[in-house]
Structure formats: C-alpha cells, structure tokens
C-alpha cells in the first residue's frame, strides 16, 4: 500500500543520514601523516567544534611524533641497518609504540566524548591511514529497524 511505502520512505530518509563522516588527509606538509582540521558541516549539531579540533590536532601531533626524523629514529635506523634489519623482527619499532598510544587515546576519546554524543571514532590505521571516520551510532538502530521492516514487507512475513 502507498502509505506503507510513504512511511518507509520517511524512516529511510532519516536513516540515510546515518552515513559516516570522513576526515581526509592533509597533504600540504608533504607525505607526513596529518588530517584536515576543517570542521565538517555534518557534525555541526553533534559535537562542539573545539572538541573535534582538539582530537584531530592531538592525533596529528602523535603521528608527527611517530614520523619525526631525529635522534631516536636515526639511532633505530642505523642499528637496524647494522644488524641487517633483523632487529625489526624482534623489536617493536617506535612507530608501533606510538600507534598503540594512539589506539588508547582514541578509545579514551570515544568513551569520554564521542559515545555520549552518539558518535564513534575509528582509528585511521584501520582505514589505511587515509581517513578519520566518525560513525553515527544512534541512527544505526533506527536503520536496523527500518531495514527489517522493509524486508518483512518485501517478503510478506
């Protein structure tokens, strides 16, 4: 019936807002890992701009520290070269240690700031370091309900 479809359309429309927001990489500083701090419009009603910017800036700091070419990285590099790089198989590199710190930071941010606002921040390492994505958690359950309802209609359950 037409009104069923209409209701579904309305529900579906609000569910389709449950798309993810992607923060892309900022390549202006060459190939180092840095994310754009521009506040996306889709998050306008969900989170304060300052909190968002602080998260992205802290992530950028962590990545900058991981990729910094300085004393410790030279030491690691030269030592690795001298041992024919076997040391990479035995030891955790500085980069990996910082990635662990980043994971914990993201988890903490999710628990304290983003989950109460119905958002979920994904670790960029899971997306090939291309994007920081914000997923909308509240609307997911709405989408689930919508999809199940649509399926029931289609299959006349």
């Amino acid at each position, binding site marked *: 019936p037409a009104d069923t479809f209409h209701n579904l359309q309305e529900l579906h429309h609000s569910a*389709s807002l449950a798309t993810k927001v992607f923060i892309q990489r900022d390549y202006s500083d060459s190939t180092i890992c840095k994310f754009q701090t521009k506040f996306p419009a889709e998050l306008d009603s969900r989170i304060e701009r300052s909190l968002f910017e602080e998260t992205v800036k802290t992530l950028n700091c962590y990545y900058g520290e991981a990729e910094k070419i300085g004393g410790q990285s030279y030491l690691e*590099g*030269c030592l690795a070269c001298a041992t024919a790089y076997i040391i990479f198989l035995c030891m955790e590199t500085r980069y990996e240690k910082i990635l662990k710190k980043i994971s914990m930071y993201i988890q903490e941010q999710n628990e304290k700031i983003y989950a109460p606002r119905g958002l979920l921040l994904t670790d960029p390492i899971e997306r090939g370091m291309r994007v920081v994505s914000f997923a909308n958690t509240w609307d997911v359950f709405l989408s689930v309900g919508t999809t199940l309802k649509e399926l029931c209609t289609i299959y006349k359950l």
Partner: protein
Amino acid sequence: MKNHEYQQIDPQALVTPTPTPPPRPLPEHKPRRARRRWEVFPGKNRFCCDGRMIAARQSGVLPLTLGLILLTSGLFFIFDCPFLVKHLTSCIPAIGGVLFVFVIISLLQTSFTDPGILPRATPEEAADIEKQIDNPTGSSSSYRPPPRTKEVVINQQVVKLKYCFTCKIFRPPRTSHCSLCDNCVERFDHHCPWVGNCVGKRNYRFFYTFIISLSFLTAFIFGCVTTHLTLRSQGGNGLVFALQASPASALELVVCFFSVWSILGLSGFHTYLVATNLTTNEDIKGSWSGKSGNEDVGNPYSYNSIIKNCCSVLCGPMPPSLIDRRGFVPSDDSVQTSPVEIELPAAKNDINMVGRAVTSGRPLPRPPVITLQQPAISIQSHSTA
C-alpha cells in the same frame, strides 16, 4: 559453503585488527574455520606462513637471483677460499661471509616485506569520495566523466593527485598503482622482477642494502678470484694451468664480470635517487625535471641537503604495514567492515539500494544478507518461493 540457517557468529572470531606484528596465532574454536584477511585480499599477491610473509604473485626471476648468488658464493667458499686462506689471510672468508649474509637477508626482506600497499577503500569511503567528485562538477550535460584529479599544494608546488579506479581512492602523493600486483603502493619506486616484489616505502631501504651489499660482494668475489688465478698462474705455470686447476673460478669470473657492471650501475643510480629523494618512477616520468617546460618545477619532497635526504630515506622511522593480513574476516560475506554498520554485500553495498528498490516496487535482485556485528546475529534470507 553457504549455510542457509540462522546462526550465531562466535564473538571470538571478531578480532579487531591490530597494527602491531601478530604475537601468536589465535586459537580457533569455531565450528567452521574463520578465514584470515589475507585469504580474501583483493590484490595479486602471494602469502606465506599464514599471512606473515607477502610477495607478488609472479615471483619473477627471484629463484634465478637466489640461485646465482648461492651458486657463485658457494663455489667461492668451497674452491677459492682454501687457497686464499693458505696464501693470503683468513680474513677473506670472514669478509665474504658477512657480505653474503647481508645480501641474502636483505634480498629475502625485500621480497617478503609489504612494500607499502594501500588497502582498498571501504564501500562507505568510496561512496563518500564519489559524492565529493560529483558535486563540484555540477553540470551533467557533458558526456565526459568528471576529471578524477585533485590538486594539493606541497612546499609551494602544485601536485596533482589522481583517482585510482581499482582501489577507489585518491592516491596520496608519490603513490602509484602497480599493474603487476594490482595494488596501490606508497612511494612507489618500481616493480623489481629480480626480487619478485614491488619496491616502495617500506622495503626501499632493504632493496638499497641489497644492491649495495651485492655490489660489494660481487666486486669482492671478482677481486678474490682474480687474485687466486693470478697467484696460481705465477711461477711459469700460465693462466690455462690455473684455470684447469680451479675450473669453478672460471664460472665465478664469468658470472661476476657480467653482473658487476649492471649492479654497480644500479647502485650508483639509486644512490643518486636517495641523495635527491626521488623515486625511479618520478625520475623516469620526469615529474620534477621540468620536462613540461615549467621552470618552477623542483622536487617538493627533497630537503635540499644530501645528508638529510639520505637519512630520511634510509634511516627514517619504519612505517607499519597498512594491510591487515592476519586478522580474521568477520563473516563469510562481508569484507573489511567496521564494527557498527550495516552492509548489503549482495546489493551495491549502499543502504539506499534497499530504499530505491522498495519505492519503485521492484523486488530486490538477490536476497540480501544483513550482518550486525555488535549484536551477534546473522540473518540470511531464503530466496522467495
């Protein structure tokens, strides 16, 4: 393999992929074996040791490279070293041994390390990028597809980022798609058939170590064999006698003579590339040499200091592998999903597909599979009777 029954996903199979090297294989107590991500990897790669090692599908001439090195070095240690130790010094096999170990280890690491492969975009990312591409261009009247390039300014230079149709991403700077491996590789240098793998950001230092140590090894063996034959042919014996006394040396001489020039040349070329922070790909294409007539072109990635360039390329931090090889695939039909999302893999991976099909009144093309990962339920619909 499809099970048309209601089933529960074992939460222990849903392991979050970690970037660190895998500590040990996870215990599998699912009724059906969970597949690891390397088994569903879309690129043309080969995996060994349950995903711990990666190589290109075409191993190229890696067996030949290994064979030649092992053969020549073996003959050297067996036939030339005893004579030289007796007549000269026992440092010779020691130096040879160290060089040989460096060559083999760096060769294996170049061949079996992930060169910096970028994982393909998830469906949501691809959709998001498509939206960004379609919106700015606006006019739908032209038949030409919208230009799939993005411009970025790096160090006051305009760099064009191209869109990769296979991986569905905008390639980061210095990234190129290798057609042999069917992957986008970061800081792509070249695909080396001799090592059977791409050379990129993560394994360039191994590759450089390999060719430098191989140059030294080849030159060293060449020198030692020449010395050996010279010493043998002294005292009025002649070269022919020396060759007859040690025929293996002749073979080594031939192999080394023909390879030392190309290897030395390659080493020199790559030393130049390292010093100027260029890749083979950029050098061949002439990206920064101003071939297009633009006078302002220069390498935006160079630090303009040979030492700093060398240090950043060879001694820089080792980036992690971005492809998760040993994590488990969450369910049979979905690929690389994140924890909280809904995916319709049978349809076009977009929840809008369901909406459109419903509103137009047409039945869905195939029974969709909905996988909810946080509540552990998998629902598979039967086909309509």
